[in-house]
């Protein structure tokens, strides 16, 4: 009888709810932490090549991103969601695609814009159409064109390396940077974008932990090699090799950390392939035929806008359906 009474007490605090009653250990919060961890090699490479000051830029960007989200959630009287880590991640991503020694005021402005306009006006996490960090970067490029295209030499630079980025050097001076330097990141460029090695370490970690899908990076890399390869075979004097394009500019960083953003990329595997290949096609067009030396940012932003359309046309066939 004693047991029965005990059970009756239990009854009062039993939880109800729809099935399923168990849950995988994976969570959005964990995923954000994994992405931040995966960016550590890039942070280290930025310090190695551009000095300790870059940490200040990164911290400024992260702090202002989190603060902006905090203030907006408070103003709109919504539940605080900074614990999901997405605001901090946006801040970190934005900092890593800025030029070294970037002015702190501009960094903070970019960060505020990224969260406020890039994310919160749409309703917060999960509702934004464009990648918030790229929105922040595009805002800075438009507002501070001089600062945003002022590059510095990497610390380990030898005489042959100038402060212009490899892509700009190629576009305007026809100088091809050698591959080892491109791969290790001993070139001028944005904080976290220069070292393909660091990006690969973090990117592969994300793919093996299944936080990022493999389809988008793989399709982007295949797309770039194929499209650039065609141009290169047609005229090797006019166009650089596919490998040069693969490791220069923001391509690797974009492929592993920007295009794989859950919110702004397609839902299905088929959609991801279309998305990745299209981004590469746009990058090839901008880099070779456009006015700018680099086009990763605009290519991804453009394809972000097309994502809903891709989703609409890649609805998977229902099991057993014959059409």
């Amino acid at each position, binding site marked *: 009888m004693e*047991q*029965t009474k*005990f*059970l*009756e007490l*239990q*009854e009062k*605090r*039993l*939880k*109800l*709810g*729809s*099935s*399923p*009653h*168990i*849950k*995988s*250990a*994976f*969570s*959005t*919060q*964990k*995923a954000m932490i994994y992405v931040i961890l995966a960016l550590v090699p890039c942070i280290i490479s930025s310090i190695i090549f551009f000095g300790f000051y870059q940490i200040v830029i990164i911290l400024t960007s992260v702090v202002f991103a989190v603060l902006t989200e905090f203030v907006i959630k408070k103003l709109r009287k919504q539940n605080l*969601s900074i614990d*999901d880590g997405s605001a901090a991640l946006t801040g970190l991503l934005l900092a890593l695609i800025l030029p070294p020694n970037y002015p702190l005021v501009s960094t903070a402005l970019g960060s505020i814009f990224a969260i406020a306009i890039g994310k919160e006006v749409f*309703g*917060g*996490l*999960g*509702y934004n159409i464009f990648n918030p960090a790229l929105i922040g970067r595009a805002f800075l490029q438009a507002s501070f064109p001089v600062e945003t295209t002022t590059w510095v030499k990497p610390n380990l630079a030898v005489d042959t390396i100038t402060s212009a980025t490899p892509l700009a050097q190629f576009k305007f001076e026809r100088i091809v940077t050698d591959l080892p330097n491109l791969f290790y990141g001993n070139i001028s460029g944005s904080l976290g974008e220069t070292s393909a090695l660091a990006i690969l370490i973090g990117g592969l970690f994300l793919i093996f932990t299944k936080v990022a*899908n493999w389809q988008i990076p793989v399709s982007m890399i295949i797309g770039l090699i194929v499209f650039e390869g065609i141009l290169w075979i047609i005229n090797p004097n006019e166009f650089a090799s596919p490998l040069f394009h693969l490791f220069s500019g923001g391509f690797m960083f974009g492929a592993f950390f920007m295009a794989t953003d*859950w*919110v*702004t*990329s*397609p*839902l*299905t*595997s088929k959609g991801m392939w279309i998305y990745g290949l299209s981004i590469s096609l746009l990058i090839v067009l901008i880099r070779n035929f456009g006015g700018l030396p680099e086009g990763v940012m605009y290519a991804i932003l453009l394809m972000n806008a097309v994502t809903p359309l891709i989703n609409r046309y890649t*609805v*998977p*066939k*229902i*099991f*057993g*359906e*014959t059409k």
Partner: protein
Amino acid sequence: MIFRKNTFKGGVHPTEFKELTENQPLEIMPTPKEIFLPLQQHLGKEATPTIKKKDKVLAGQMVAEPVGFISAPIHSPITGIVKDIKSIPTPIGFPRKSIIIEAESSNEFQYYEPLNIDKIAPEQIVERVKLAGIVGMGGASFPTYVKLTPQKDKPIDTLIINACECEPYLTRDYRIILERPIQFILGTKLIMKALGVNKAIIGIEDNKPEAIEILRQHLANEPEIKLEVLRTKYPQGAEKMLIFAAVKRQVPPGKLPLDVGVVVQNVVTALSIYEAIIEGKPQIDAIITVSGKGIKNPKNLIVKIGTTIQEVLDYCGGITNDAIKLVVGGPMMGNAIYDLKTPVMKATSGILVLTQAEVNEIKERNCVRCGNCVEVCPINLQPTKLARLVQFSRYEDALNMGIMNCMECGTCQYNCPSNVSLVHWLKLGKIKAKNIQVA
């Protein structure tokens, strides 16, 4: 489409927790003092009581008769006096009119006449299955005889026995195979005879090597029954997934297995049919797994239908202090209940008492459109889109996107990093969409 052997596309691998009960032999729980028998234990019509208050009933005696085609009779699991007929809460979430019987200490029982298995005709098998009130083990608990009644325009060529037991925790099918393989195989052969098929496949997941070994031994001289070892993945035991993995046929949306020439039955059903024919015993017992970290002594039990969950839990030593959820059925598709007075029903497969660590209930956040739900949905639906359509009451759009194909397996929500209540929205959407369909 990539050809995948012995499995299906999508699915997840939840922690199994089968070790809690897999080595616990089936144990007969003593008869309780009182029994609560809901008159409707399945989809279809409620049965009509054939007894009155204060009548004496014998164990095995029919106490309610079926009404219409999709309905099953109900038998008293114990000998005793009818105390009352009134509405009580049930584990399916709705109250149901039920017969309450008070036990008497008596060993009397009234089973049907045993039938000779060698001379039995297919119609006799179907008739007995109907009379014994055997119902299926799926969510709908469809009366089994309906599935055994062949339709002229839809010939059946294969019987599939679902021995996957893909839900975590549950081990009753596993124990039946280990302890009663001969009865189980005889039951399978009776179903084959009733259907007039000469091919049966027992589908079992590869995480049960001991059961596979035992079945191999017993099936050595049974060329008509094939054992198909399938990859362990949830929901391998879902009818459509099982049929695809075992015979590579796809059941089209809105169709039934018999449309592709297949009938699927469960291990427990095969055993019940064996008992109904050889022993003349109606379906009055439920074989259940009582498990979870929140129960003191997890067990595999044979209990009388109508036994309250409280009594079952008491018999298993009660629940621990950190228990937070009580689930009837498996953890992926079962119902969470709060009322311990609800009875075990014919189709009850398990009672789980879960702790916080097992439930792992994380904060629900916004959908981040990661596509994990789309990736794992075995039916290829887009759960996140459907859920959003339901949230905005766009039931017609949801209908067009195939919401009715959802089998509520819970795979999507299990895999959702934001813990969106996908199954809740899908269930609601299905009910609303159905009304549109009818109207």
